[in-house]
């Protein structure tokens, strides 16, 4: 497991901020996932040693929380909210258009590893639904007729393009 030097130094800064080492677990896992795209068995062992807990303590957290992944996420990670408010504004149709235009089924990562497309539960932006979280950026009012620019942006990122910042 080759963590980038920046990741390692961030981890070293995160741990002492907590009164107890184990509390740093979630934040350390976020750093590792951001670095590697997923959390491998090796990473779990490494974190366990680092925080002086058992590997099982890491595994139980990784498996409990939906945001941690044991399989590599796509280069671009798209999460479309499907909860009630977004549903009322057409989220399911939005999801369907995205599946078709991006050539990726909901809940899947493309074979070339460029894109992960999935449903998510309420993203706390219900007033501007349907919404999607594309990497760190929130895209709002994603009704089927307004998807053009969003799809273009996702395709660009999936192809390795640099994210265009949005408000989020």
């Amino acid at each position, binding site marked *: 497991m080759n963590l980038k030097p920046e990741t390692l130094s961030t981890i070293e800064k995160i741990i002492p901020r907590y009164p107890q080492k184990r509390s740093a677990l*979630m*934040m350390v896992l976020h750093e590792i996932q951001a670095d590697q795209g997923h959390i491998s068995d090796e990473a779990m062992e490494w974190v366990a040693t680092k925080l002086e807990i058992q590997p099982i303590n890491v595994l139980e957290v990784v498996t409990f929380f939906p945001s941690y992944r044991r399989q590599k996420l796509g280069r671009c990670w798209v999460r479309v909210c499907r909860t*009630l408010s977004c549903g009322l504004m057409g989220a399911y149709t939005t999801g369907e258009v995205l599946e078709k235009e991006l050539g990726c089924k909901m809940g899947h990562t493309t074979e070339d590893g460029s894109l992960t497309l999935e449903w998510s539960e*309420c993203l706390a932006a219900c007033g501007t639904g349907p919404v999607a979280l594309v990497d760190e950026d929130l895209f709002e009012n994603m009704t089927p007729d307004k998807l053009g620019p969003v799809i273009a942006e996702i395709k660009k990122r999936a192809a390795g393009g640099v994210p265009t910042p949005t408000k989020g």
Partner: protein
Amino acid sequence: MPVSETKLLMKYADEPGYTPGIESYLAVGGYEMLKKAVGMKPEDIRGEVKASGLRGRGGAGFPCGVKWDLVDRKSGKPIYLICNCDESEPGTFKDRQLVHKDPHQLIEGMMISAFANDVKFAVIYIREEMPKGAKILDAAIDEARARGFVGSNICGTGFSCELIVHRGAGAYICGEETGLIESLEGKRAYPRIKPPYFPAVLGLYNCPTIVNNVETLCNVVHILRMGAAEYCKIGRPNNTGTRLWCVSGHVQRPGYYEVAGITMGQLLYDLCGGPLPGRSFKAIVPGGGSMKILRYDEKFKGKKPDGAAYEYGVDDIPLDFDGVAAAGSMSGSAGMMVMDDSVDILEALANLMQFYAHESCGQCTPCREGSQWARKITARMCSSNAKPGDLDTLYDMAGNIGGRTVCPMGFSTTWPVQSYIDKFRDEIEAKARDNRCGMPREARLIQK
């Protein structure tokens, strides 16, 4: 006369040119209340908060001052303060606004609360799905630290308090305060059983801990600025201060509105512009997906001060804790979801059951299994595969979840089930009987 907003927390945040940076905040008198607070006696600040009647904005509406009074100050253990910014209740999006647009207001509120409660370590627990919010908070904390408002020797008084941002990882149950604490300890977010684990006594690391919502903590700044007596003039007794109502779904102008002392009808019509063209309101979920649904044509019985009975409708419900409770629901997290006559109520229920089934932490059998059953039954009813008796099974089962679980999430599953069936039984029954599906494909609320 149409009503307008009463802006307290969002007074500056929505102004053009106002940024999340510290300069914007300082320019409008930011951190003056922290400077004032550190010159006061902590118990006097607590007294002010108690006298303000401020009720928690996270869901249950428990009085903040009373909660602070419950903190065990004699144990000799450190006291912790946690800001709950998990904001995962369907329909709720106000904490996001407060964090994104005015992070220093929250930081100031937290530092005042920390000083008032002798807290040396405070945490903002923010959900993973708000990555930008976490970054904005991190940057704001750095700015505040550089000016001596966070960290050691705050405002040169010798008072020190660390403040960090901790990110969740996609689990709704981390909004529940003890689930949050477990998660912050680096464990699965299994809520703890109360008693004995009331956070005020046995919270983070089994030390006394205060867990407050973002909006609650922001209010503390204004209570100190205005004084409790003046603050109490906003709203009604026992429902003091403003509230940020989040309105989503079928209204002309969805969004968040900071209001006090208005009715539900005034919010829905004057501020949100009423139903979409050609439509009429059918149902309102007043306080987040967990709360009981109201039928728009429903009537409630009230009593005037002289004892005379009268009838009122949804539009006349006073938009506050007690007003919504009197109508048989709760204002919860103030996430109002509005459905018009195009909505098939069973599909709406099925959508929410998908949510609760996904979010049950799995610790208690009734919640874990019950929510899965509710999801399956409602889904098959929506895909024209209802079995005879499905509706009664669903209803009976719901009666066996709430109150039999470790945390109140049992109720979050059962309240929608029971209230949707109680209020729309005819519609749901007819649909099950005829095995037909209500919503057109482009408006559907569940996967087909």
